[in-house]
């Protein structure tokens, strides 16, 4: 019975929650005032857009690819959001829908031509950035009122971000980890040949995952402008690396279709908090990126330790 509770598989899945708890406790210790509705709201303000971007990245990682354009894509969505979506909502929605289709098409292209995803998505990141600059050459614009209202909505007990994070984590968990087609989608990451031999369409799976990535990218951009109320083409460029870090921090792996949606959301929140934590420690912003990297390395080292204890276990 005890062996079951200390099994490496369980430990591995608890690691993201553990890292989040540790960093949260550290913040509360450093700054007890953060332990309030207002404090939490301030701390977790930007967590939701990052969580969406992380889920987008996770969709692509599920099928053994990597998206280096998600940050620029979120930036483009934000720019569309503060211009077209505000001025002519219908056109705005059409553009965003076309974005999702474009993401699906990118997945199809990568699969059919057997291209490296990093190259294609990196190339596309410049396309998104260019388009964003065309739409919004200078920072500004105005987010649609409804978006701002939703993002600033005051929920009872704890801030909206927490409810929303729990909800999306559970929805994506059910879709990818519990649904019947979700098993096939993850199987594509694990052993594409086997999935294909069971007469599933690989290209359909790739298009689905890339379109889902596009969808979450759009949600990320829209939720971002709801908080900032204005946008700029470069607003989300750092999301690319943050999202990858979030997926890995959340227990995902680069290859093999091993992913965890709940972990990814926890990872995104942990990364958001890490920034605040370092500010509370009075670490200058110049050092923060390095310090975030250090946090990432610590968590990955813990995971490597768990994996090693698993390898030592006799088969």
């Amino acid at each position, binding site marked *: 019975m005890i062996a079951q509770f200390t099994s490496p598989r369980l430990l591995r899945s608890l690691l993201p929650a553990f890292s989040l708890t540790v960093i949260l406790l550290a913040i509360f210790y450093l700054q007890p005032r953060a332990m309030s509705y207002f404090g939490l709201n301030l701390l977790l303000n930007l967590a939701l857009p990052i969580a969406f971007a992380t889920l987008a990245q996770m969709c692509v990682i599920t099928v053994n690819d990597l998206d280096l354009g998600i940050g620029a894509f979120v930036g483009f969505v934000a720019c569309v959001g503060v211009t077209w979506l505000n001025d002519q909502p219908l056109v705005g929605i059409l553009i965003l829908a076309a974005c999702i289709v474009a993401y699906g098409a990118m997945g199809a292209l990568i699969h059919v031509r057997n291209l490296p995803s990093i190259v294609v998505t990196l190339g596309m990141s410049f396309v998104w950035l260019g388009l964003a600059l065309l739409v919004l050459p200078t920072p500004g614009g105005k987010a649609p009122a409804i978006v701002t209202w939703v993002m600033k909505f005051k929920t009872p007990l704890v801030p909206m971000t927490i409810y929303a994070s729990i909800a999306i984590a559970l929805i994506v968990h059910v879709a990818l980890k519990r649904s019947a087609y979700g098993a096939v989608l993850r199987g594509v990451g694990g*052993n594409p040949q086997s999935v294909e031999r*069971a007469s599933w369409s690989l290209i359909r799976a790739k298009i689905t995952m890339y379109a889902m990535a596009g969808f979450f990218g759009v949600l990320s951009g829209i939720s971002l402008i709801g908080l900032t109320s204005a946008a700029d083409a470069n607003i989300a460029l750092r999301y690319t690396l943050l999202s990858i870090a979030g997926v890995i921090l959340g227990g995902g792996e680069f290859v*093999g279709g091993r992913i965890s949606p709940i972990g990814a959301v926890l990872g995104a929140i942990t990364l958001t908090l890490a920034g605040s934590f370092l500010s509370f420690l009075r670490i200058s912003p110049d050092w923060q990126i390095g310090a975030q990297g250090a946090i990432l390395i610590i968590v990955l080292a813990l995971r490597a330790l768990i994996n090693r204890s698993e390898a030592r276990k006799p088969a």
Partner: protein
Amino acid sequence: MNDMSKPIVKLSSVEKSFGAVRALDGVDLDILPGECLGLVGHNGAGKSTLMNILAGIQKPSAGFMDFGGDGDGGGGGERSSATAANYDVSEARRQGIRCVFQELSLCPNLTVAENARIQHASIKGWNWRGRASELILAQLDQIFPNHGISADELVGDLSIAKRQMVEIARAFSIVDQNIRLVILDEPTSSLDALVAEELMVHVRRFVDSGGSCVLISHLLEEVLETSDRILVMRDGGVVDSRPAAEFSRQSLVEAMGSVAKDEAVHGRDFNSKRQQGTPYLSIDPSGAQRGIAMNAHKGEIVGLAGLSGHGQTDTLVNIYNKRRRYGIDMAFVAGDRQSDGIFPLWTIGQNISIGSIRNLLRFGLLDLEQEAKLAEQWRQKIAIRTPNVNDNILSLSGGNQQKALFARALGSPADTILMDDPMRGVDIGTKQEVYEMIRAEAEAGRTFIWYTTEMDELKHCDHVYVFRNGAIVADLTRGELTEQKVLHASFEEAS
């Protein structure tokens, strides 16, 4: 219900070529309902290719396929026939054909139940997980009582034997499509004797209830005991097909080998180089004192034989990794050109000179003139068919790419050359040229350790070691070498 005399699968004059290599040369195959068909043959006989065609993974280059009988089990009695053009994996599944592949084909990141779901598109909707678990566990219980596998374990966490059990159970599980034929390609390779026996009992049960099975195994006793009929393949063709009762282990081995021809000629001019003192390389690939040690003397061509995947490549890699400890300069000629051999973005010249880059340095920098000279010299020496060594390596045909890899090894200062079945997919003309070269280089004092899956190539070797399950089980000099002996040693004796 089934007409027991009408074959469920009928292949006629099926051919398959990969470039210059003919893998199947006009194969006829009938599989009757309620029959277990044993399929034996040595490396490259075409067994796997034939099964891949049957499973719809590869398309035949020519020939006809006919699936008499009632298509998808539940459907009408309509006669369905598939031609080479429209036959694929989904069609094979519709015909009720399942396959357990030699290389395991489960998704390691999914649970046992989820892997069962991947196989069965119709397990979906509410509680699919419960139904998938029930299905796979029931099947596991039926075939392997005491399997000790639970449905929500990740396949990646299972031992290799358990994975194989899951894979087999998955192939036999039925949801809505009836199963008419299960192909088992080396299904017992990682099962212990007891579990393997359970599987064979199940195969008989399945066959007695009207299903059909194709059983490929290197354990001849297993094939002899379980099959109704045995098909012997050699060089891409069927050479014998008789009821299993008419075969013995001896006669099967004989049927697999080609007719003994000029073996005496090869044996006659053989002078063992082994009288001259101690071997300069000696290794026991099995690690423990399980098998015979392999020795190599200076100037020898040592052949590694046996069925593919029985530890030959691992042994070569192992020797290469320990080259510093042995204090021997070695070069490695890879068998899988595309993944381990060539640098696809480089020129032919660069692909050749990389093996001897240390000799081409001048003041720590690469001497381009000398590099070009080396490449040109080897182009002429082994006749790589290209006007210019500065062309990209991919501009060459497969055989000539392989020559460039030989040039890389031979051009290097290494005095021992390890070869990992390098002649795969190389045309016969190129092969003859390379054989000549190897012989000349061995005369000049170089040692070759040569893993090959082709019987003919063993005849160029001074000494042949036959591998089985990671250990050497036979040591033959060129004088003693016959195909029979190699086959006998490759196929396991019942213990």
